[in-house]
């Protein structure tokens, strides 16, 4: 999805959501620094931070934020043993910052 499109969705949110952004990436990760995903109460609204490789962990963290947890950096380790069929064998490590993305009209601290 086009990045500008995601920004547009973010700027015109109608209900609380969580913005997840890859803020640093080392090694082989499916998406690089700057990739982002918007998660709402019913799941992913737009974007991706890597699909099977680590996205589940980020979605779980996003759900915790929607339930009231503070913003934080989630470290996603994709360096699982490559002889397994784990989806996390891409080979890299990425930090994903998850933060509340309130709709404009709910702008607050």
């Amino acid at each position, binding site marked *: 999805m*086009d*990045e*500008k499109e995601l*920004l*547009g969705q*973010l*700027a*015109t*949110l109608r209900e609380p959501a969580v*913005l997840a*952004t890859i*803020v*640093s990436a080392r090694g082989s990760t499916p998406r690089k*620094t*700057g990739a982002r995903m918007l998660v709402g109460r019913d799941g992913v609204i737009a974007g991706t931070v890597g699909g099977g490789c680590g996205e589940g962990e980020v979605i779980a963290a996003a759900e915790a934020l929607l339930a009231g947890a*503070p*913003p*934080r*950096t989630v470290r996603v380790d994709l360096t699982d043993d490559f002889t397994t069929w784990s989806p996390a064998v891409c080979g890299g490590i990425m*930090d994903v*910052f998850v*933060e*509340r*993305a*309130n*709709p*404009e009209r*709910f*702008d*607050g*601290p």
Partner: protein
Amino acid sequence: MNPSAARVAARVLEALGRGERIYTAVVTGARDPALIGRRWWLSGRRHGGSLGSPALDEAVAAAVPALFPPRESRGALSRDFRYPDGGRTVTATVYIELHGPPARMVIVGAGHIAIPLSRMAAMLGMRVEVLDDRPDFAAADRFPEAAAVRVIDFRDPFAAMDLGPSDHVVLVTRGHSFDYECLVRLLRMSAPPGYIGMIGSRRRVRATHEQLAREGFTTDEMRRVRAPVGLDLGGQTPAEIAVSVVAEIILFHGGGTGAPLVEKERVVERFFGDPGGRNAAED
């Protein structure tokens, strides 16, 4: 009040709508948990929000121009900043993004290569402008993906275009005298386009360079021109040549090697090489 991520996104879209660069920043790591998620943005002289400390805002504002090269219109990175807080020096991790107007691709010469080149550059998200002195060729209906199609005079092909380091210019004109006219102007600009490419056989490129040399241009200046433009893919058709040009532009920004990944990674040779077999030769 800390601007929400939604509000910052709206500021980014406004800046892009004005054709301006904007930097956005958010604190992702700090000893004081109240700082995490603090946001700030800067676009020209406009700015808003705060990273929680005027000293940190200033440190980030001072650092951003050097963090992102002028030829790039998009960037994202994290940095640790040390700044004074009360009597001590503290550290915060800040994630910073640059959003700028889309990179521009100026195609000079609206012939058969220009058509797939315009389409592919638009697919890469570039703003495409096509120039030619022949109105029948520089016709908007031939270039539906282009943002602008202009009939120009080769005596001053880039009049009023305000080209700069973030721009790409590819010369695919019908004759090397036209390429030459363009190159002279591009190379004399105080801040020439970051990417200048010119199509041509070795002989045609040499002819243009001979003329540049006669005009007093140095070999360093000649080397600023990617000529012949494109990667050596062995393509022949206009579409194949356009692929080789856009591939070189991706390489220019992405910093890869341009080699096939299978040769770069050599997974079979590295991990499955048979010492007695033909795979062992290189190791």
